[in-house]
């Protein structure tokens, strides 16, 4: 049993235990635990999922039901940076579909795909709450606003975000 949990790092385990200590039930930390592991590894593999489930004393199936419910928990590997392109109404009115088309062309990927060099994963995201600066996207933790499909210089020529 502890072998399964041991696939998590001591740091991950201690961060998860910290969350558990704040609440009445171990499995109540499910979302925090998934996010903690994802922070360290970029995504949540089957192996990590089983380990977290053991640590939280819940079934892996139930935990997977939670993991797959949420938009920001990745059950497949993602690139070094995830691009979250807003495709909601205010960005739509300001031309996000053109930005999407150009981004896809530039990176050679569609939604849900990762560039061959492993740099970027492209995903749509519901309204990012920056509608006055539409169209917008996030590249990793950075918000980029007033996007223009003719100028995607936020992605440097080599593909790295500037």
């Amino acid at each position: 049993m502890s072998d399964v949990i041991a696939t998590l790092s001591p740091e991950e385990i201690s961060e998860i235990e910290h969350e558990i200590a704040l609440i009445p039930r171990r499995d109540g930390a499910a979302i925090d635990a998934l996010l903690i592991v994802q922070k360290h590894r970029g995504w949540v593999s089957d192996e990590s999922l089983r380990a977290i489930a053991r640590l939280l004393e819940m079934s892996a199936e139930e935990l997977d039901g939670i993991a797959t419910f949420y938009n920001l928990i990745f059950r497949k590997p993602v690139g070094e940076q995830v691009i979250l392109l807003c495709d909601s109404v205010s960005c739509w009115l300001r031309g996000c579909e053109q930005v999407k088309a150009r981004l896809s062309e530039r990176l050679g990927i569609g939604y849900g795909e990762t560039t061959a060099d492993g740099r970027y994963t492209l995903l749509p995201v519901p309204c990012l709450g920056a509608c006055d600066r539409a169209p917008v996207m996030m590249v990793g933790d950075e918000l980029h606003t007033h996007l223009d499909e003719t100028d995607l210089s936020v992605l440097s020529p080599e593909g790295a975000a500037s």
Partner: protein
Amino acid sequence: MTERPLTQNIRADGASTFLADYEANGGYSGLRKAVSSMTPESCLDEVKNSRLRGRGGAGFPTGMKWSFVPMGEKAGPGHKYLIANADEMEPGTFKDRLILEQDPHQLLEGMMLAAFTIQADIAYVFLRGEYVLAAERLMQAIAECYEAGYLGDNILGSGYSLHLHLHRSAGRYICGEETALINALEGKRANPRPKPPFPQVAGLWGRPSIVNNVETLCNITHIITHGADWFQTLGRGEDSGTKLFGASGNVKNPGVWELPMGTPVREILEDHAGGMRDGYQLRGFLPGGGSTDFLVEQHLDLAMDYDVIGKAGSRMGTGTMIVLDDRNCPLGMVRNLSRFFAHESCGFCTPCRDGIPWVVQLLDRFEQGQATEDDIALLEEKAAFIGGIGNTHCALAPGAMEPVNSALKYFREDFERHITAGGCTYNGAAGRH
């Protein structure tokens, strides 16, 4: 006393107001006042008398909501919770972000006062995951509060204790629905819970809990600091206080502004948003986010008050307007919104889970020129059913149908034209169609 309390600390450079500046501008005097010279009952009376209505979308009177929380012995043993709803995922809504990023202490003080009123001992900020900058600034502000003795045990020597945590959401629009939010905080899938029991009685971990919107809680800070009478004078019409109003779409100067409740729509769209961009005409607007009904030109002189907008057939919602212009297709806009709601449905009930994708498919038929007259009637029938109050477990589905129903009402000729012209004839803002 300021007439623009919510934005008094918002700086032009976008930097955040942290503790020293917040205190220098009168911050935490409301908390000091409450814990030293007020009781939970007198705080509740002040909030009731202010006639504050919730800014999260439904406009429920805040004082009344709090009055259902069992107090003293009646609460039984265990914790009570106060939760700030900072999920802000309603399409077209970008008001809470302003405060979360630039004046986090205003929210924290409001939360402390709300928690004191209902005698909660644990508080959460439920923050959407993508608000990274807000998370950093909130963490710093929370740490400052523990350091200064505004949070923790025996706050300012009053005997009252409150612990406050930041929860970063893993992302789903439904998490903003208050009982779904509570399930998310318990680490579960965010399906809404049946009501009753209401969260005020049995919420987080089965204990009494209050969920309020960020802007609602910010208002509490000023109501306690300056009093309910002062708050009532801020509104221009029926409702009291100010509101963070916003406008997005093809207006000249999109943004968010703190204005008196009851400010006419025209003033917001023309004086503050600067009117339409050159070459664009107004077709209509959703007054308060993606789940409110379209209003049109004839409604421009209405006051942004809950009941005024309600009587006109729409809702105040979040007060952030989405403006439709004449170069974007109304059906395209509704299709974009419906796709959002279809994707964000939690899947619990059939009319929402299966019905909204059906609506999207119908709208696709119009877009592609495959629709017939019968499809208008079918769309009307479906939208009425999915949007029917009581046909679904929560308000997501009815909200989703508000733009559909109202588009059928105000933009009927566009539906007809998609049939006669064999598809969409719009050449959107950037050549979308």
